[in-house]
């Protein structure tokens, strides 16, 4: 029971006010109701009179935005004076397990390999993640199909599970424990019954998600790498790319996509290198000198996105670069749904046997 505490709903806004003195606090808020898309939540930088909202499922934006922002000043160089990077401490509420799990991909890219991206690492160290259990899901959610549970079991600093009149708070890291110690007056010992209530609620959401997925017929997780490899030369790619307008939304909204471009500029005679999100769906993504481009056609780029997610990362990290959040499905103006791409690959491969 060491890591479990109880936080009363009635006191959470007071706690947030305290937190805001020392941290940048981001927490989900309700987006304007949209009848076609249902109720959505979005991170906001919590201001003084805003009330805490517990999002029942993941928010719109990817969590990566806090760690590898869409545009970042990656380096200033050969300028007079000192180039400084100013980073404040940040707390982000509202991340779900799909978000937390996909940070494994971002961590692998930016903190492992030949060298470490120190800007990412500093942001990672200076950001506290207060996640929450999912108590509902969106139509596009399919986390369970990829063995991602609707509640985090690791990778969070604190996790909130709604129980009656408050939250059962689990500390998942030393950083999380330290935060609780610092604000100890807001947290009481958790009771056995509260931990029990969490268990029941978790079982319930898993069962509901299982029923939800039953109708979706998603090919098994273990087969996805084989599908994109064996299906490399199938017509699936050419058929599905027909509606792609190359907006890049699927990459930008995805919490595992990490590609970026370095671009040099100079303002006021100051040399700057910007690091900008890039999308493998853009025609110029792989254009090299003299106009050579191995991903000239849209279908090659759609396939590239899939081989990166389901082959490259399986080979290099042992997990796919997808956590089943469904964001790319929701965002796509061309209605390209990766679940349908998998099913089509599976069907075409079966027919060929």
């Amino acid at each position, binding site marked *: 029971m060491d890591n479990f505490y109880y936080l009363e709903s009635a006191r959470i806004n007071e706690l947030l006010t305290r937190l805001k003195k020392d941290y940048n606090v981001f927490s989900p808020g309700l987006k304007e109701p949209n009848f076609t898309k249902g109720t959505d939540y979005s991170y906001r930088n919590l201001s003084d009179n805003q009330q805490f909202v517990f999002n029942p499922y993941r928010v719109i934006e990817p969590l990566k935005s806090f760690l590898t922002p869409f545009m970042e000043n990656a380096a200033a160089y050969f300028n007079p004076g000192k180039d400084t990077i100013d980073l404040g401490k940040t707390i982000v509420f509202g991340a779900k397990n799909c978000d937390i799990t996909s940070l494994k991909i971002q961590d692998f890219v930016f903190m492992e390999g*030949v060298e470490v*991206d120190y800007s990412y690492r500093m942001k990672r160290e200076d950001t506290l993640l207060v996640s929450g259990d999912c108590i509902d899901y969106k139509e596009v959610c399919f986390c369970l199909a990829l063995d991602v549970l609707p509640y985090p079991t690791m990778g969070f600093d604190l996790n909130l599970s709604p129980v009656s009149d408050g939250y059962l708070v689990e500390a998942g890291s030393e950083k999380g424990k330290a935060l609780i110690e610092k604000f100890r007056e807001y947290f009481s010992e958790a009771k056995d019954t509260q931990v029990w209530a969490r268990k029941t609620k978790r079982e319930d959401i898993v069962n509901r998600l299982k029923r939800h997925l039953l109708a979706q017929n998603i090919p098994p997780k273990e087969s996805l790498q084989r599908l994109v490899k064996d299906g490399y030369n199938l017509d699936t790619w050419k058929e599905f790319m027909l509606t792609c307008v190359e907006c890049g939304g699927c990459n930008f909204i995805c919490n595992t996509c990490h590609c*970026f471009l370095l671009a040099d500029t100079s303002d006021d005679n100051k040399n700057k290198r910007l690091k900008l999100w890039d999308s493998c769906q853009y025609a110029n993504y792989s254009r090299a000198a*003299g106009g050579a481009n191995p991903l000239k056609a849209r279908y090659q780029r759609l396939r590239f996105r899939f081989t*990166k997610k389901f082959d490259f990362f399986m080979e290099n990290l042992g997990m796919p670069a997808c956590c089943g959040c469904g964001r790319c499905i929701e965002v796509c103006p061309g209605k390209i749904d990766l679940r349908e791409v998998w099913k089509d690959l599976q069907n075409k491969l079966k027919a060929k046997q």
Partner: protein
Amino acid sequence: MKNIYRPFEATVEDIIVETPAIKTFVIRPKESFVFKTGQFIELTLPGMGEAPFTPSSDPGIKDRFEVTVMNAGRVTFLLHELPKKYSLGVRGPYGKGYPLESFTGKDILIVGGGVGLAPLRSLLFSLFSEINKYNKVVLRYGARSPDDIVYRSAIPEWSKIDKVDIVLTVDAPAPGWKGNVGVVTTILNDLPVDLKNSAVIVCGPPVMMKFATMKLLGLGFPPENIYLSMEKNMSCGLGKCGHCRIGKFYICKDGPVFTYAELKDIYDIWD
């Protein structure tokens, strides 16, 4: 902690015109810089842009290095316009380079095309400096025309070195050209190398690499002895930005030199 996206400063000490489209830049870095042959750098034109190049000089020279650059687009065009003494930025060296240790005791066959001779020159200098370690060094190089041959005046000097055997070819001859005419694969017959005890290094434009590799495989060279210098669009140079991926590899960090055995199961490697 080091910012991996930040270049260090270097000065252009000299500029050598090699061909109408190719120049060699002699660069003196302001920080200590060592590279292994076959590794590459990212060269920054401050405030303007960055592009990857493979040093073409002898890695044994520590206080400066050279890159040989073909004018092929925006950044390379700007580079070609530079005056001497200009200040540039450098990141790197990146990538793995040539595994010289596994070349010992072998016949070394080097097949190059166009500006692909730039990284190969650095390799040749490394081999020449310890020539006793290798049985022989055989170079087969093709350019579009005699005027497009890089390091043209140095090549006869290299030929004089003991155990070095060089044949050149051009696609389109000019008056006075006495050498072979035809693409590089036409000078890959009757190679004076031992198929079973050789290392073959190929570097050049993608089409040339493709046909040369197919020819070499046809001649019976084992895929694991054929070393290819791969090239793709790159941004970061260190396995973060995603651009240079082929299959399960990033060319920047897992290469840029791969054996054909490592690449043969990956689709579309020559595109």
